[in-house]
């Protein structure tokens, strides 16, 4: 590391004001601060600082996402070999899934970080770390077979129009990863929903060649329920992609088709534990999303008219993007409500809306994305009313004090 430090010190003058590589200053700074903690010391105010910085915070979120990502990769491989009717070891399945997902991650990072670095340079700012999380979220919330160019286009759109035009990380109104998904969903619906996109049947880098077996059907559990002819939930069974009934443990551990990150509720819960234990994610938001969801499920169960309205709570929480959205999307501090009371309201309404959209809108079997984006827009309003309570109290106090003087 010492040699590296020496090398950095040697080339640093090139990137300073007046150096011939000054146009790469933000990039150099990003790499340098990635390698070494900056040694600049406080000039005003407090003389000591907490060791937690933006990089540490984002690192924790990424670590929390890793279990869900790995389980998602395994699930991709598992379903591929199931669809082809081939035997394969756990390792092979994982490697297949890894290779299938990796290009998505690379594309998302290259496009997003490229834009971020360029804009940081133009603004003469340091590169913010926000996209490190967004960049890994994007591949996790889209179907595995989404074409890479679509991811590139959608990522560029979201980073520029959902984040940078507002001022960059910390100023965006909507969750950038969800804007990416919404862009894909409304621009290329055939690639984002239906029965054909959730399981990768083609080979990856020559691995896992074969043809799909006859019994194969690639519908997700929620998709099956939305299109079922069954009159009640009792008559309905969730089926795996080769026609065998799904157990609830399959849904919990992630052996169902779906977007990469959302399939394994178990892995998502591991991430939630880390986020809550480190205080990076707000437990209030996560809990209130589930509370809101629970209330909505109880209500639709009470007035159930069809199979999806009758679906019990545990399925709602295990299937689709509900848990993933609650843990990783709703807790995004920038787009969430920022007051503690506000977080309760914000999370509760997300849960309520997500279930409502899921149950009542046959067009979208998944409501989490829209629910969170919708509440992103309302988060400032929620905060406004929470803070207004404080302001009113202060004004009242001042008025009383004034009266007392007269």
């Amino acid at each position, binding site marked *: 590391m010492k040699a590296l430090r020496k090398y950095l010190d040697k080339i640093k003058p090139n990137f300073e004001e007046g150096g011939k590589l000054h146009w790469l200053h933000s990039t150099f700074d990003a790499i340098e601060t990635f*390698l070494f*903690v*900056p040694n600049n*010391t406080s000039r005003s*105010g*407090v003389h000591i600082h907490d060791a*937690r910085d*933006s990089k*540490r915070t984002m690192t924790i979120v990424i670590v929390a996402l890793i279990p869900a990502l790995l389980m998602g990769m395994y699930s991709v491989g598992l379903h591929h070999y199931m669809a082809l009717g081939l035997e394969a070891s756990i390792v092979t399945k994982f490697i297949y899934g890894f290779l299938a997902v990796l290009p998505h991650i690379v594309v998302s990072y290259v496009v997003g970080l490229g834009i971020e670095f360029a804009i940081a340079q133009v603004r003469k700012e340091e590169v913010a770390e926000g996209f490190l999380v967004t960049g890994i979220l994007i591949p996790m919330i889209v179907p595995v077979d989404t074409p890479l160019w679509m991811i590139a286009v959608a990522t560029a759109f979201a980073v520029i129009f959902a984040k940078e035009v507002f001022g960059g990380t910390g100023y965006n109104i909507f969750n950038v990863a969800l804007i990416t998904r919404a862009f894909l969903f409304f621009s290329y619906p055939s690639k984002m929903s239906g029965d054909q996109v959730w399981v990768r049947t083609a080979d990856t880098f020559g691995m896992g060649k074969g043809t799909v077996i006859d019994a194969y059907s690639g519908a997700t559990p929620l998709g099956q329920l939305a299109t079922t002819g069954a009159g009640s939930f009792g008559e309905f069974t969730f089926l795996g992609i080769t026609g065998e009934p799904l157990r609830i443990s399959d849904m919990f551990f992630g052996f169902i088709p779906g977007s990469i990150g959302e399939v394994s509720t178990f892995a998502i819960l591991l991430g939630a534990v880390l986020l809550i234990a480190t*205080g990076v994610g707000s437990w209030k938001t996560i809990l209130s999303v589930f509370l809101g969801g629970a209330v909505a499920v109880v209500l639709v169960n009470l007035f159930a008219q069809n199979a999806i309205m009758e679906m019990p709570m545990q399925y709602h929480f295990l299937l689709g993007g509900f848990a993933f959205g609650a843990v990783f999307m709703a807790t995004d501090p920038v787009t969430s409500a920022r007051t503690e009371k506000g977080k309760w309201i914000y999370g509760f309404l997300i849960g309520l809306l997500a279930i409502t959209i899921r149950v009542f809108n046959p067009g979208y079997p998944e409501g989490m994305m829209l629910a969170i984006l919708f509440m992103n827009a309302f988060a400032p309003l929620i905060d406004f009313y929470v803070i207004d309570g404080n302001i009113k109290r202060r004004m009242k106090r001042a008025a009383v004090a004034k009266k007392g003087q007269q």
Partner: protein
Amino acid sequence: MANRINIKKGLQIPLLGAAEEVIRGTVKSEFVRICPEDFHGITPKLAVRVDDAVKAGTPLFYEKNHPEMFFASPVSGIVTAIDRGEKRRILRIVVKADHAGQYEDFGVKQVASLSGEEVKKSILDAGIWFLIKQRPYDVVASPVKVPRDIFVTGFDTAPLAPSTDFLLNDREADLQTGLDALAKLTTGKVYLSVSTKTTLKGLREAKNVVITEFNGPHPAGNVGVQINHIKPVNRGETVWTLNAPDVAIIGRLFNKGITDLTRTVALTGSEVKETGYYNMVIGTELKHIFAQNVTEGVSLRYISGNPLTGRKIDENGELRAYDSQVTVIPEGDDIHEAFGWASFSPKRYSAGATYLSFHKKFRLDARLMGGPRAIIVSNEYDKVFPMDIYPEQLIKAIIAFNIDRMEQLGIYEVAPEDFALCEFVDTSKLELQRIVRVGLDLLRKEME
């Protein structure tokens, strides 16, 4: 029994280098330097010239808008230099001390027999009015306003802070006289706050005041937090604030008839070999207590005050006007720590749980530990801000300089020091105290 208030929010930063409760002696330096910038909110006008002879208590300068407000020389001697900076701003007034101990005689006075105006005039004449600060704006109190109440904090919870009990030991009579004098200056009450750990009788059993007991971590000792819990400042109201050792200096004026700006000062910090307490007047050069007494071979940061709100000085620096503490910590600019974001180092300290901490006490340096960002993480400031105020929203209103919004969110109740812990824990490494200071100054300009 005193009214008791529990403070839950806050943070006691576990730093190495608390001062041992021993008086190590009296420090007398050749030169004494007074920096007018310490006295926030005043415009200094010189009352002396170079080569003038002064006594302790002789005015060195006065406030332009209130010519009756003098600022006393802490020692007798000769004015040797007046250092000026940009736009001829006075940086320092240097007095060569003769150590003859000559004091201006203001006469011993019985506070009980004086009127409020007489008490005020005595303090102004003696050149120690600056010890009284006011809210709003956290500036030296305006002598023409009558404060609603006066708040005195009787304990200090800042990191490595000196024990107020120890500072006031054997100055209890002066403290009581000072409190009696303050009571003459307001139509309201004098509120004295003590900690649950306070044992000094002079504080616990002080008379002529309303005593409130506080329990909790820093910033429970900040007078702003105490006011917010006892009787918040409303728009249009003015309150005055002091800390107990300063009240004792005012008391000394009436009991002895002289301006004696001697403080007991704690020498603290992880880089100090022998910590302890020293007696010295404000403006004293500190090089004598640093010499051979600090870690060698590393870059150091010298602070007059505590590590959260103190001023950066250098090894030849002086004790600044309001401080009863001097701290030495590592500067840290010679450290290149690799992959800090992935670190499991037990030497790193964080108030949150993104680091595991095993150490009980930490040796923290002056690095920012990250780069400045927009405000991203929420509920970070709130956890260390025990006031009925939304700190993040107030900071944003100040940055936007939206006066209405600042008023609504409680700008009149805060001082920069109240945001020191927010600044410490801030993931985005923003200079919150500076933001609040600039905001308060601009607001004062608009309103007055």
